[in-house]
């Protein structure tokens, strides 16, 4: 059951990538190379970041250590100049069942679901609880707990208020029904 949910999740994430809008400097290659093999849930928490491919980058708050002023400048260039409402980033809390404290991530720092997952892997891998299988859920504007990955990334980051990494068996009830 768990494997099924994950395979669907991965498939949908890959589909969504095709529809993601990206802006970048001409000539810059922003499309991450697709990993040769889909990574299952069971792989994600034990694989070291180095093995996930040269373009897989983990994003955590405050990393890389670049001053906010400079980060904003980079983002201004990438998004075509207008600073828009990304000042301060989209910081949301991330809790993980069994972990002693919460973390925060800036959803703007990720391009899509894959990078988000990798970022969460890096952040939480040191907690003993990370050995089990996990699903990532989020709380939306209405306060409902939803499984991450169902909606397009851009829609997700505007509606996500909090992230929660749950034990796999608890997440079964959340899988979206056809």
């Amino acid at each position: 059951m768990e494997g099924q949910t994950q395979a669907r999740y991965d498939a949908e994430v890959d589909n969504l990538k095709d529809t993601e809008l990206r802006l970048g400097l001409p000539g810059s290659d922003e499309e991450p190379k697709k990993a040769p093999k889909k990574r299952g849930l069971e792989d994600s928490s034990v694989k070291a970041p180095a093995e996930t491919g040269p373009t897989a980058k983990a994003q955590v708050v405050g990393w890389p250590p670049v001053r906010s002023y400079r980060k904003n400048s980079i983002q201004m260039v990438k998004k075509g100049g207008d600073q828009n409402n990304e000042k301060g980033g989209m910081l949301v809390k991330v809790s993980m069942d069994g972990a002693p404290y919460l973390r925060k991530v800036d959803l703007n720092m990720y391009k899509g679901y894959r990078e988000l997952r990798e970022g969460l892997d890096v952040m939480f891998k040191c907690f003993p609880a990370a050995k089990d299988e996990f699903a990532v859920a989020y709380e939306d504007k209405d306060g409902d707990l939803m499984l991450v990955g169902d909606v397009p990334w851009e829609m997700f980051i505007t509606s996500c208020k909090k992230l929660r990494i749950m034990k796999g068996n608890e997440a079964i009830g959340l899988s979206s029904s056809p």
Partner: protein
Amino acid sequence: MKVQSAMFYFPEEVIEHIFSFLTHHPDRNTVSTVCKAWYKIERLSRCEVFVGNCYAIRPDRAAARFPGLRSLTLKGKPHFADFDLVPPDWGGLAGPWIEAMARSCPNLEELRMKRMVVSDESLELLVHAFPNFKALVLVSCEGFSTDGLAAVARSCKSLRELDLQENEIEDRGPRWLNSFPDMCTSLVSLNFACLKGEVNLKSLERLVCRSPNLKCLRLNRAVPVETLAKIMNQCPNLEDLGTGSLLADQFSEAYVSLISALQKCKKLRSLSGFWDASPLCLLAVYPICANLTGLNLSYAPTVQGQDFINLIQHCVKLLRLWVLDSVGDKGLAVVASACKELQELRVFPSDLFAAGPATVTEEGLVAISTGCPKLNSLLYFCHSMTNSALITVSKNCPNFTRFRLCILEPRKPDPATNEPLDEGFGAVVKTCKNLRRFSISGLLTDQVFYYIGKYAKALEMLSIAFAGDTDQGMTYVLNGCKNLRKLEIRDCPFGDGALLADVTKYETMRSLWMSSCDISLRGCKALATKMPSLNVEIINEWEAEMEENLNNGVAEVISNNNNKHINNGNDERKVEKLYVYRTVGGPRTDAPDFVWTL
């Protein structure tokens, strides 16, 4: 002994005169501790005070001790605040300091602040309270707007320096530049590069026209080439220029004017800005490159590839270079062959996310170290690094005083051997005896900390992230680095054992920062109990709802309303963020709800 007792027979004026040769703050601090007489003479004659942590002493006390103060330097938030690790409203308020100075130190002329929160009201007070005020330098500060700048411009009769570096300034329109009165002709240095909004170009031109002493001028992105050309024609004595937007059409009047203006500036030594720089504008810069000692292209992603190479190969006297990693290893190789005098190099990431094809690797760094043996200061963001490269670099450049390497992916090993980077960083500390500042990254075990503790005897500041295996790592550093002043750690498996390994050590340091490590409330409480001369502060943004998500036995809801001491609940709870610093000012009186002083 005989000489020392003879000193007591000197009149105070003579001792004061002797002290005037001591300009280094630590030296002045030392003489003030010799005896009461010397303390009094020293404090009354002290002109410059440096406060590395604004909470280490109460503002009133500092102001009262040094009534003759002319120059004050203040640092507020911990360094990791630059990377969003410190919540907003944490503190570091400039207001209380400015108010205290206003009461006790009327001679204040210069104020330099870093990572502090400054309000417009404080700026108003600043310029009205000090009739001789001459220089304001704000680095990485926030809390003020262009209205505050207008107040400074308007009221300072003899303003010499207004230097704004990478601050978050609320833009309330371009009028602030108009506020410099017509009689203000004293400007030597003006830097508003970090302002995001428009400026009144005519006011800017007029201001420059009536500032014959202007040596340093750094414009923001809103200033076009036409204005730049006009300005440069007015100040041929400029030494330091930050260009605005360097976007120019082919052979426009502005472009031609810029070329001739630049050629007149024979004293120009430092260039920065280069926003939107077009290749044509870069051509205009070539004639002055041969005399440049400083070049900052880190906000110019358009200057890469052949454009960069064409520019940098002329810069043979360069001492300081800041670039983006988009120049690539190829670009760095050209730097290595052209800039033989290079002392400082900073390579910033142009993309925070993923690897593009044209970024820098260990090859670029090795090339630089081979070509630029005088290199002593490095900040290098890259995608990977090898042990052998680091060993080569340290052999080539044994003079590093600052070495900061950031591998973008946390815990990444040496890709050639799949091993940790302990040996590489170990080589740096073994070879570079004068290393004062060190930042490490990549996959690292306790071994690298063994090396740091054993060899980095001059080390003053160490930044660690995603490194180490056990408490022993941190312990090596605390035990071995006898000159350590600042230690900042994030996402490392160091726990209470490491924290409490040598508690008296923290009294010899300015501060310790630990976030996302393995320390518990119990450990922090123990530290606070043992060392009353330290402020042990915990930053926790917990809320009651977190309890619902946890299932590790912590069941109680923590009520945090105005209760800064955690007396209920489980002391085994892990602490999110810890900030420890020595202080004579006691616990903070301005701490927000989420900062708990133990």
